[in-house]
């Protein structure tokens, strides 16, 4: 479902302030997702054998994001910014399903449910900030396509092992992607605002 973006509220904010706001929110949800992943594995995935046997991929792997400082420095600002927007957008629907799954999960603590709700709402705010930055940096730029999530069936599976593994895997992917968003935004700010002299 595409979002209708309203730019009226961002005209009077400086680009540095936009970066600071986005980075702050990204780091916030990155910390929350790390706590959620560790908490779920501690309660539902007693044997690490699951990961060894069924190591799965994340639905955002197809975006081919840079994985080292050299790769980041070799990517142009607009390309890197569009990647960040694509990652954030890719988690719009999975977060909604994740809220429903954890809400109906027996034995799950309420804290993990509250955290996932917080992550869902904050991700939507970050998306708005990122679009504003893109327009400021490259007026007229258009968003890239985003990856679709295909793990809904496993999250709803009647088999507990299948469902637990699916949830563990998606929480891990969410943690990794939110950390990427935070790291890429820090690099962009140093490049655009401080000319790589942070």
């Amino acid at each position, binding site marked *: 479902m595409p979002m209708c973006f309203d730019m009226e509220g961002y005209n009077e904010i400086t680009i540095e302030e936009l970066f600071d706001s986005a980075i702050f929110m990204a780091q916030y949800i*990155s910390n929350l997702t790390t706590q959620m992943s560790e908490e779920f594995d501690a309660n539902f995935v007693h044997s690490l054998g699951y*990961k060894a046997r069924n190591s799965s991929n994340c639905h955002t792997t197809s975006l081919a994001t840079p994985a080292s*400082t050299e790769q980041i420095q070799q990517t142009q600002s607009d390309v890197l910014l569009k990647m960040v927007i694509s990652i954030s957008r890719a988690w719009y629907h999975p977060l909604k399903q994740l809220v429903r799954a954890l809400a109906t999960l027996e034995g799950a603590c309420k804290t993990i449910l509250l955290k996932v709700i917080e992550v869902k709402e904050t991700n939507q705010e970050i998306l708005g900030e990122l679009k504003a930055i893109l327009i400021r940096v490259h007026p007229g730029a258009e968003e890239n396509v985003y990856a679709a999530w295909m793990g809904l069936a496993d999250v709803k599976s009647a088999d507990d092992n299948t469902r637990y593994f699916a949830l563990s895997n998606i929480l891990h992917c969410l943690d*990794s992607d939110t950390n*990427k968003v935070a790291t890429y935004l820090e690099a962009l700010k140093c490049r655009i605002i401080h000319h790589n002299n942070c």
Partner: protein
Amino acid sequence: QSPPGKPEIHKCRSPDKETFTCWWNPGSDGGLPTNYSLTYSKEGEKNTYECPDYKTSGPNSCFFSKQYTSIWKIYIITVNATNEMGSSTSDPLYVDVTYIVEPEPPRNLTLEVKQLKDKKTYLWVKWLPPTITDVKTGWFTMEYEIRLKSEEADEWEIHFTGHQTQFKVFDLYPGQKYLVQTRCKPDHGYWSRWGQEKSIEIPNDFTLKDTTVWIIVAVLSAVICLIMVWAVALKGYSMMTCIFPPVPGPKIKGFDTHLLEKGKSEELLSALGCQDFPPTSDCEDLLVEFLEVDDNEDERLMPSHSKEYPGQGVKPTHLDPDSDSGHGSYDSHSLLSEKCEEPQAYPPAFHIPEITEKPENPEANIPPTPNPQNNTPNCHTDTSKSTTWPLPPGQHTRRSPYHSIADVCKLAGSPGDTLDSFLDKAEENVLKLSEDAGEEEVAVQEGAKSFPSDKQNTSWPPLQEKGPIVYAKPPDYVEIHKVNKDGVLSLLPKQRENHQTENPGVPETSKEYAKVSGVTDNNILVLVPDSRAQNTALLEESAKKVPPSLEQNQSEKDLASFTATSSNCRLQLGRLDYLDPTCFMHSFH
């Protein structure tokens, strides 16, 4: 000999989020040489790889360089132990390089003691990020902490500094030595170990400077306070003089404290000017008397009568006709000539009836008079004479103007001379009286007593005492008859004075005049001393009452009256000259 024990992976750490190293603890070796190998596979990949480097990180370790490091991917790592007897495998370890970062501690720590503008000292701590990490490009975001303590303390004091690479520490003790260290941490990694320790001593110079400053401030403030106190003291004194001006001491003009000390109240009063009060009262009295003197004969007669006989109303009626009869000046000359002849013809006959009348008088006159014996005969004689002779009123009118004029002339002239003349005459009278018989001596003694009382008392008492003198006249008449024979020639001027005094004196004197017609000669001779005494008393009183200053004032006010009186005096003197030759002619006849 046995197979090797199960090894254990100790930890994996990445210093820069681009490379990482894993360490393991070997198990028992089974008594045989044992080889260890590390194998790993990545998330989403099926291949398994062996450790790329067993040497760089030391024994029992495996180093993954940038080439073999991927972030945001999970590494599945295991370690195998193998000897001749067999092999064993460790538990797998899942590693995400993003979350195993442990950086090196910060570098280039510098300490510096500084002062603020208010001379407050503080410690300035600075450092740099570790060299391995790439902070400039934003790949890393570091957070820092510093800790410090004094050399003698046991516990550290930790301060979180956030992302900044410098920090200021206040409230340090001078003379103390402080130790400082720093460390850092990435967003999702582990804290580094504490960096190199540095120390610095806070010098005492600052405290000394502070103390000197405080001393200077204290001294200046003290000086300022002294100046303020001094200024306030001066102003206060001037203000006090303004608010409470000095009270002047008492200053009384003409006042002499010595007089108070000596106790001379009279002199004090005079010095203070109090003498003005008595003179004013005296002036009033003098004015009243002067008015009496200037006024007509009637006014003079009225006060004398009221003083001597206030109860009797009949006497004033007699005075009124006297004033009317004053116009007949020619008749007076003829009457005076008759008086001169009468005493020479019948002196012994008049003496006898006087003696017979005396016993009747005391009964009627006892209550009003203090001296019944003396007063009674005088009254009876007067009344009988008046009934027998109608001429007495004419005689009174003739004598009164002489008396008044004489008094005025004396006042106008020098009072001293007049007083001397009257005193001489009084002495002569006293000598004559002493020569008389026993009864006459008694009368004389009474008269002598009255004279000193007049002198001692004030003005009023002598007027009241004139009454007894008048009552004593009859016995004097008898005595005078004897003396008259011998002294007729010498008493001629006395006769004139007697006439003048009798008229203004008392109505009783008019009765005596009745005797004079037959006894007139005797009466004339006897009345001379009484008239002299009265005149002297009046003169003395007038002298006392009239000070020189007041005399000048009166003269100014009454210039017209004095001029008139002077003319009258001259005319009357002329008349007296006429009388004298007639009297001498009668005596020769």
